[in-house]
C-alpha cells in the first residue's frame, strides 16, 4: 500500500508527467521506424537525460520503452515491416487485417491491448519488486558477489543460441568494466596513460555505440522500407462486442508477458510469439489466425506491453538487466549515480515510486498520443531513409559530445560502433557484453571485499547462506539454460 501511496505522490510532479508524455511520443516515433528498436530509441535519448532530475530521467527512458512497443506495431500493420522485434508477431494478423481494409481496427486493437498489458504489467511490477528487494536487503558483500554471478549466469539465455560467443562477449564487457581506477587500491588499470580513461568507460558510451551507431552502420546497407498509405489508415477503437472477444487473448498475453518479462533474457519478442501461439491454442476461432484475426493482434500486443513493466522487476529488485531496454534503463540509473538493486529502495525511494507513477502516466499517454500520432508516424515512416540516418547520427554525435564536451568520447563511440558491427557480422550477441559491463564492478569489488573480510578464505561464499543460495540458483540457471542449448543443438534422430 505504501508503494501505491508513494507512487500516487510521484504523479503530482509536472516533470514526471511531461517526461512520460515526451518519452512515449519519442518512443512511438522511434518504434514506428523499422530498425530503431526500443533500446535504440532509449539509447538515443540517454545523453539528454544527464542534466535532468533522476526521477524525470528514468521516467523518460521507461516511457520511451512503453511508447516504442506500440510504435513498432504501426509499420507492422501498415507495411508488413515490424518497427520493433517484438512487433513481429503482430505482422501475421495485423497486416492481413490491413489487406482486408481493416488497418484502423487493427491499430485500435493494438493500442488498447497494449494499454491493458501495460497497466497489468505495472501492477505486477509494483507488487513484486519491493518484496523481492526486501529479501535482498540482508545481503553481505559475499551475497552481492553471488548476486553478480547470478546476473552473469543468465548469459546463456541472452546468447541467442551461442553460449560460447555469449561468454566471449561477457568477458569483453567485464574487461571494459575493469578500465580505470581499481576499486580497492585505486591504482590505474588499462588506461595507457590517457586521462580520459582514469574514471573508466561510461556504460552510456558503450550502449550508444553498440546499439545506435552499429544499427546505422548496418542500416545504410539495407534496402529502403515500404511506404504506408495515409489515405486508408484511420485508427478505430474496438466496440463492446470486440472488447469481449479480446478479453481472452489479452489475458493470455498478460500471463505470458508476466512470466517472460521477469525471466532475464526472454523479452518481448518471445513473449509476443508465445502469447500468439497460446491464444490460438485456446481460441474459439483458431482457424482465423493468420487470416486477419483480431485476437491474433491483441495477444502479442498485450504480451509485449506487459514486458515493458515486468522486465523491470529483476532490474529494480536485484540490479540484473534482463533485456537490452532494461540495460539501457540501468545506464540511465548509473548516469545519475544510482545503482539499481535492493538498496535503491533505501537510497532513492522517490525515484522508484516516481517511476511507478510515471509508468502509469506513460500508459495513459500511450492511449492519448496513440489516438493522434498515426498521421505523423505515417509521414515519418515515408521519409527518405538517407535523411533519417543522417538526422539520427547527427543527434547521436551531438548527444555523446554533450556528455563531457569531449572529442575522445566521440572517437570511443565510433570504435564501439565498429566493434558492434563486427560482432553483428560474427553473430556475437551484444547483451552479454552489456551485462558484463554493468555487473563488472559489482562482481569484482564484492569478491575482493569478501576475501578481505574472510582473510582470503573462499569458503565465505558458501558459508554465507544468502550467498550460497544465490550461487546454487546461478548453478541451476546455468545448467538449465546449458541443457536447453544442448538439447536444441542436438539433432533429433
Amino acid at each position, binding site marked *: 500500500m505504501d508503494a501505491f501511496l508513494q507512487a500516487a505522490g510521484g504523479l503530482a510532479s509536472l516533470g514526471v508527467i511531461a517526461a512520460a508524455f515526451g518519452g512515449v511520443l519519442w518512443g512511438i516515433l522511434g518504434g514506428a521506424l523499422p530498425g530503431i528498436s526500443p533500446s535504440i530509441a532509449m539509447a538515443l535519448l540517454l545523453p539528454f537525460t544527464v542534466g535532468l532530475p533522476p526521477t524525470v530521467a528514468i521516467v523518460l527512458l521507461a516511457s520511451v520503452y512503453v511508447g516504442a512497443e506500440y510504435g513498432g506495431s504501426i509499420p507492422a500493420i501498415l507495411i508488413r515491416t515490424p518497427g520493433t522485434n517484438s512487433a513481429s508477431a503482430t505482422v501475421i494478423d495485423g497486416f492481413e487485417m490491413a489487406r482486408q481494409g481493416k488497418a484502423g481496427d487493427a491499430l485500435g486493437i493494438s493500442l488498447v491491448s497494449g494499454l491493458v498489458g501495460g497497466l497489468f504489467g505495472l501492477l505486477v511490477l509494483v507488487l513484486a519488486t519491493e518484496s523481492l528487494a526486501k529479501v535482498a536487503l540482508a545481503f553481505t558483500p559475499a551475497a552481492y558477489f553471488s548476486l553478480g554471478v547470478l546476473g552473469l549466469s543468465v548469459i546463456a539465455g541472452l546468447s541467442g543460441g551461442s553460449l560460447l560467443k555469449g561468454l566471449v562477449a561477457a568477458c569483453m564487457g567485464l574487461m571494459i568494466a575493469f578500465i580505470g581506477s581499481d576499486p580497492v*587500491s585505486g591504482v590505474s*588499470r588499462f588506461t595507457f596513460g590517457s586521462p580520459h580513461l582514469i574514471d573508466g568507460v561510461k556504460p552510456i558510451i558503450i550502449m550508444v555505440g553498440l546499439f545506435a551507431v552499429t544499427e546505422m552502420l548496418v542500416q545504410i546497407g539495407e534496402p529502403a522500407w515500404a511506404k504506408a498509405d495515409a489515405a486508408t489508415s484511420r485508427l478505430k477503437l474496438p466496440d463492446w462486442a470486440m472488447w469481449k472477444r479480446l478479453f481472452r487473448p489479452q489475458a493470455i498475453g498478460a500471463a505470458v508477458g508476466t512470466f517472460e518479462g521477469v525471466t532475464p533474457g526472454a523479452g518481448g519478442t518471445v513473449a509476443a510469439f508465445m502469447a500468439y501461439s497460446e491464444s490460438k491454442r485456446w481460441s474459439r476461432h483458431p482457424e482465423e489466425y493468420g487470416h486477419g484475426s483480431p485476437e491474433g493482434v491483441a495477444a502479442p500486443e498485450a504480451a509485449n506491453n506487459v514486458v515493458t513493466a515486468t522486465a523491470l522487476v529483476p532490474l529494480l529488485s536485484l540490479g540484473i538487466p534482463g533485456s537490452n531496454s532494461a540495460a539501457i534503463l540501468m545506464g540511465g540509473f548509473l548516469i545519475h549515480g544510482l545503482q539499481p538493486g535492493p538498496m535503491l529502495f533505501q537510497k532513492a525511494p522517490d525515484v522508484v515510486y516516481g517511476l511507478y507513477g510515471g509508468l502509469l502516466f506513460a500508459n495513459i499517454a500511450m492511449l492519448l498520443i496513440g489516438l493522434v500520432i498515426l498521421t505523423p508516424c505515417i509521414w515519418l515512416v515515408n521519409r527518405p531513409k538517407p535523411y533519417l540516418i543522417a538526422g539520427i547520427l547527427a543527434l547521436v554525435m551531438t548527444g555523446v559530445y554533450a556528455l563531457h564536451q569531449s*572529442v575522445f568520447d566521440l572517437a570511443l563511440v565510433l570504435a564501439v560502433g565498429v566493434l558492434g558491427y563486427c560482432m553483428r557480422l560474427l553473430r556475437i550477441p551484444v547483451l552479454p557484453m552489456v551485462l558484463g559491463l554493468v555487473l563488472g564492478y559489482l562482481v569484482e569489488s564484492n*569478491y575482493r571485499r569478501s576475501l*578481505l573480510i574472510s582473510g582470503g578464505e573462499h569458503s565465505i561464499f558458501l558459508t554465507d547462506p544468502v550467498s550460497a543460495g544465490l550461487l546454487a540458483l546461478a548453478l541451476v540457471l546455468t545448467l538449465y539454460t546449458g541443457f536447453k542449448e544442448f538439447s536444441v543443438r542436438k539433432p533429433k534422430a
Partner: protein
Amino acid sequence: MSGIGDRAAALVTGCGGLVFSVVYILAARRIEDSLLADPVGASGVPVAIGGLMALVSTVLILKGLLPGSRSATRDTAQQAHASARPAASLRTHALAGGLLLILAAYLIALPWLGYVVAVGLLAAAIAWFAGGRQTSVLIGFAVVTGPVLWLVFDFALRVRMPAGIWPTLFAG
C-alpha cells in the same frame, strides 16, 4: 546484414578472442600493485577473466575446426548462399566503411569548423552518401540541422559546443 558461415564465424571469433586475451593478460600482469593492495590485487580478477576468455576462445576455435557438426552443415548452406551474391555483402561493408570515414572526418573537423558548420556538413554528407541526391534538399537539410541542434544543445541545454576558428577569424 549477411554474415559469414557459422564455422568461419567461430574460427574468427576464437582466434580474435585468443589473441586479444593473451595481450590483455600481458597488460594486466604489468599493473603495479599499491601498498593498499588486497590478497587478490588489482590484476587478479582481470587476469582470471583474460584466462577465461582464452579458454572459451580455444573451445570456439576447436568447434570451428571440427567437421560434421550442425554448424558445419549450416555453414555449407550459408557459404553457398553467400557466394551466390558476394557483391551485395561487399557493398554493404563498403557502405558501412564509408559512413565510418564520414563520421571520423567529423571528429577531425569539429574543433576547426565549429559545431554548427561541422554537424550541418556531417548531416548533408551522410544523407548524400546514403543516397540522397537532390542538391537543394541536401543544402536545406544541412542549413537547418546545424542551427536547430545548436539551439537545442548550446542555447537551451547550455552545453557549450565548439565554436571553431570563426571567433578568432572575425575577432582579428
